[in-house]
């Protein structure tokens, strides 16, 4: 078991002939992900790497290959359209890696995707990986190993850092999910926490948050009320100055809400373990696994 993706994931890569799309399509194929189709309008009929059929539209790709998941590597101005196209074609899990999607576009994408019953991860996220089964996105497969730790994070490389520590310590992962830090996205902490709670293979959850907003506080409330499984949390940005945007849309503190201290307090109030440093996850998770 796992969440969102597994060995039965049949993946479409939107933007497969682009620079990022082709690089990561190969990486995902090497990892063992079933990449069943690519989409690039105008390149329909070609084969990617000699084996993966390329289509003009997601609709065709789904019809011909029975794909159930899609990952998007298209430039920001076209990303919103790509997400909606995937949802309209009946794709159940849509992962958008693209960074820099205008937030005004996302205001409409979110209800569109939800209405069509699809789950959207991202945009501006590293995707998800179920070690040993399937990788959808850009999380380096090498640093992961199968196990029982569910990982969910708002950032990319910080996730890798933590996962790397866990793997080195022999603490494998059920699924790692990067939700991205954009203000309007498809999947939030609570969605992933709920999925981990329901997943028999997840025994403990590692969660990496950031300053800005109240998503972590809301997640803490959810953990306290609804979760039986232990969760260990971390907040990046304790030294960040207030009122400044720290590199992605998520990381901004304004006023009294969204500070690291406030979020850590919420974690503690929910009875969560709190990691001070990324490496602290190792001990905190280990304690809760045994």
């Amino acid at each position, binding site marked *: 078991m796992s969440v969102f993706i597994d060995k039965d994931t049949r993946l479409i890569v939107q933007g497969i002939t682009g620079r990022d799309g082709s690089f990561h399509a190969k990486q995902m194929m090497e990892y063992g992900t079933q990449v069943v189709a690519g989409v690039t309008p105008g390149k329909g009929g070609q084969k990617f790497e000699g084996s993966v059929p390329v289509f003009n539209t997601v609709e065709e790709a789904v019809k011909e290959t029975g794909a159930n998941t899609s990952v998007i590597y298209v430039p920001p101005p076209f990303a919103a359209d790509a997400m909606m196209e995937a949802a309209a074609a009946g794709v159940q899990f849509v992962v958008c890696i693209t*960074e820099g999607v205008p937030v005004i576009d996302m*205001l409409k994408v979110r209800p569109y995707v939800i209405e069509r019953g699809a789950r959207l991860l991202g945009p501006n996220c590293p995707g998800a990986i179920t070690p040993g089964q399937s990788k959808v996105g850009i*999380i*380096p497969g090498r*640093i992961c190993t199968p196990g029982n730790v569910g990982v969910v994070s708002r*950032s990319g490389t*910080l996730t890798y850092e933590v996962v790397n520590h866990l793997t080195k310590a022999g603490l494998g992962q059920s699924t790692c999910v990067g939700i991205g830090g954009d203000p309007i996205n498809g999947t939030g902490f609570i969605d992933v926490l709920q999925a981990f709670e329901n997943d028999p293979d997840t025994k403990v959850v590692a969660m990496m948050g950031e300053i800005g907003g109240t998503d972590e506080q*809301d997640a803490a409330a959810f953990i306290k009320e609804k979760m039986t499984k232990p969760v260990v949390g971390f907040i990046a940005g304790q030294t*960040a100055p207030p009122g400044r945007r*720290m590199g992605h849309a998520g990381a901004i503190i304004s006023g009294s809400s969204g500070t690291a201290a406030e979020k850590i307090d919420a974690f503690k109030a929910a009875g969560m373990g709190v990691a001070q440093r990324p490496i602290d996850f190792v001990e905190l998770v280990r304690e809760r696994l045994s």
Partner: protein
Amino acid sequence: MNIHEYQAKDVLRRYGVPIPPGEVATTPDEAEAIARRVGKPVMVKAQVHVGGRGKAGGVKFCPTPEAAREKATAILGMDIKGLTVEKVLVTEAADIGTEAYVGIIVDRATKKAVFMVSAAGGIDIEEVAATTPEKIKYFPVDPRFGLLPFEAQQLGFFLYQDAKQARAAGKIMQQLYTAFVENGCSLAEINPLVVTPAGEVIAVDAKMVIDDNELERRKDLEALRDESSEAPSEVDARNANLTFIKLDGNVGCIVNGAGLAMATMDLVKFYGGEPANFLDIGGSSNPEKVVNALRIITADENVKAILFNIFGGITRTDDVANGIVTATKQNPLKVPIVIRLTGTNEEIAVKILSDNGFTALTDMDEAVKKAVQLATEGGK
């Protein structure tokens, strides 16, 4: 991206929002000329990207064109919270009856554009939110239908009893919403929204923040950027596609990814150091970015040690290694450097670095501790 009041007002005027006439001036002469054209008492208002202009003396009432010249002379060149005033808005001084607040933000919690309106305008809305939250009405807009006339009118009635004023305010809110959406804003506000003694509803101050992600496809909005009102190092970083924020410490940090960058700064602090900056080189691999990052970091004389922390995923660590080699050949470093890299093409990167006399670490804690130690020693 923040834009100035005068720019926001120009945008909103195009959508029909009633705004007193005014123009921007960069010299006292211009200010006087504008006041003369307006033909009525004016306000002279400093155009800087910072709150609290009024308290800092950057907003003045001028009954005559001569007064406008005089106040403009005082305000132009003034320092407000570290920013120099380069421009003033000279605008008709409105007769103010009541002051309300109307704003829209992109709200992370509801995942919608949310209106905030309050009859308690004229002051910082965050203060109202903190002290008298019941005075603010929040209204999330369904993005599929936009702000409907009846919704706008309901918000108008929250502000005003008078139906004519409620309708006028509602219309302004619809115009504000359209401007917000069509210009890819993350915030748009009118504060104060004024009812004049004659009963007219007008926008006396306006603010818009454009989503940075909108600028790539909207060169007309990008053109509104005023680099003179930003820190030069941050302008430099942005032009190099880097996200950089200057801080006061002595450990210069170059990291890939915002989350890891913040975690690195936190770890510097944890091990007793002070980060000199936030710097995210982003996801894509490009040796040029590393060169620019080093140039920007080393321009800060406080920096006593440089810490690279790269976890290669989409970023290829060999690209980063090549960047470091190139940059340090062009401009030999005057402070010690600690390089931590792991991930994609790590072996190649380590070889490039060691071939060029650098040592590469793979453990983040170890690297941070060493950088803090070197900065502390260098600072002595």
